[in-house]
């Protein structure tokens, strides 16, 4: 089995997101591999360690030059090699899925792993769109996965709970919390990763155009009252809060 993991680079959870003009401005922002994609990378590594006949694990990323860092993280975690389609253009998930499908085809991938939702564009669409282009089934929000021969079994979250599933390869799996706890790359592995192959594929070798135009971005913070009550006298604080909730906010009867 050959596994393709998809990797995005997103702002670190602690970083403050800012907008300049009509764009999100990532200058000076610490960028990291998307935590949910990390579940996908980790799962690929565990499948191999579980001796389920994984021949190769490849990581793919599309994006600007600095996305190399996220690919290096995946390589340091244990991925065998990486492919970077370098572009500053922003592609929506449906457009991006063309690149994913073409790479999966030329790499002979049997399983694609990626995060359930992107921490930058808050999109859940790439897995499904890629599966559709490849004519594969997909399971989203997967929190348990096993491979036996050509068969995948596991559990995933659905609208009103979760369900067990059984599906044959090839397939796309999007990862959810609970699937695993991603490992930290060790220093020796970070050193080794520097020597692993990070191939650059030219955007020109893909027939892809964005289907969605980006017109603007703003940070709309809801004005908050920030009324602080001192809790030193618990009784008084509780009564003051209840009074505000009943008579000012009018959210309690």
């Amino acid at each position: 089995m050959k596994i393709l993991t998809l990797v995005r680079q997103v702002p670190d959870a602690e970083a403050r997101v800012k907008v300049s003009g009509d764009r999100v401005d990532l200058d000076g922002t610490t960028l990291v591999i998307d935590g949910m994609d990390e579940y996908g990378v980790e799962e690929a590594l565990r499948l191999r360690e579980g001796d389920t006949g994984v021949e190769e694990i490849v990581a793919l990323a599309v994006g600007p030059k600095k996305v190399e860092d996220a690919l290096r993280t995946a390589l340091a975690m244990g991925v065998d090699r990486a492919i970077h389609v370098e572009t500053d253009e922003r592609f929506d998930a449906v457009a991006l899925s063309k690149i994913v499908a073409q790479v999966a085809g030329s790499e002979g991938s049997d399983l694609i792993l990626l995060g359930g939702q992107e921490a930058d564009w808050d999109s859940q669409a790439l897995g499904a769109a890629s599966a559709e282009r490849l004519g594969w089934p997909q399971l989203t929000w997967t929190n348990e996965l096993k491979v036996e021969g050509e068969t995948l079994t596991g559990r995933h979250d659905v609208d009103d709970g979760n369900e067990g599933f059984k599906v044959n390869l090839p397939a796309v799996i999007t990862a959810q919390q609970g699937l695993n706890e991603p490992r930290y790359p060790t220093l020796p592995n970070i050193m080794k990763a520097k020597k692993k192959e990070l191939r650059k594929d030219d955007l020109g070798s893909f027939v892809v155009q964005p289907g969605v135009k980006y017109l603007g971005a703003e940070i709309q913070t809801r004005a908050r009252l920030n009324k602080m009550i001192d809790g030193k006298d618990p009784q008084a604080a509780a009564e003051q809060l209840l009074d505000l909730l009943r008579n000012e906010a009018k959210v309690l009867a």
Partner: protein
Amino acid sequence: MILVVAEYAGGKLGKSTLEMMTAARECGREGPITLLVLGQDVAAVATEAAAVADQVLVGDLPALAQYNPEVWAAAVTQIAKEGEASTVLIGGSRSGREYAPRVAVKLDAPYLEDAIKLTASGDALQAQRYTYLARVTETVEASGPVIVATVKPGSFAPAAPAAAAGEQFDIELELPASRTEITGKSVEKTSRVALSEAEVIVTGGRGVGSPENFAQFVEGLADNIGAGVGATRAVVDAGWRPYAEQVGQTGKTVQPKAYIALGVSGAVQHLSGMGKSKNIIAINKDAEAPIFKVADYGIVGDVNQIVPALIAASKK
């Protein structure tokens, strides 16, 4: 036509469907509004649907007894093509957001995901949507003969019934066989109001201290004021509470009138699931906790002392 795919649960049309109907009526795209009902034994849902739509297409088939993304995508695509839909609106639920991209690829259409606002502008359709874990609001635009969009729950007012009931038509569908076998489902249950419906939510975080304290403080307060119960991931990971209660990036997104956070630090991943609540109330012993930055009302104090006082004072 504007094709809206109905969402329903327990034999009743979902609020999200009524919200999509408002989006369909107000977005300014051309054509009669058609509601598509897919499933098995959905006559009651179809009748409810007819009250709000110009026409209702009903695919009531054994092959649709169980939701599957490939089957749903095939059905919606077929109807969109036959009806020459200009716009396809799908619910922004987990399931909606997993089959909508397939519909977009099949129709070779652009896809606007999880829209909170939809406005036609000439041939194009503009959408607003949240990005960067709901910290940024972006405006995006797509154009083409047909556009697929998912609509974020809670973003539009539910539509009122139309003047006259729409006509119902049974449809025939060519469906692929599902390739995924479902081997057992567990449905979330709660004795309280569901998080998606709750007007008030009380959420406990690690600062609550223990599963026993959670029951006493968080559930105790929630029951006193008729609220739903939420949890942070830290509490779910610790095994204190079921995942069904988790609010945030990898849990539920909620937008109640009041969100009461007890011993919750306010991590970005948590905020992304509750930051749009109308009122946020926080009780935390650390005055610097990030949750206070988004709070309307805050008490700096120990939940062990404040919450019992709140429970006592809120008892009528």
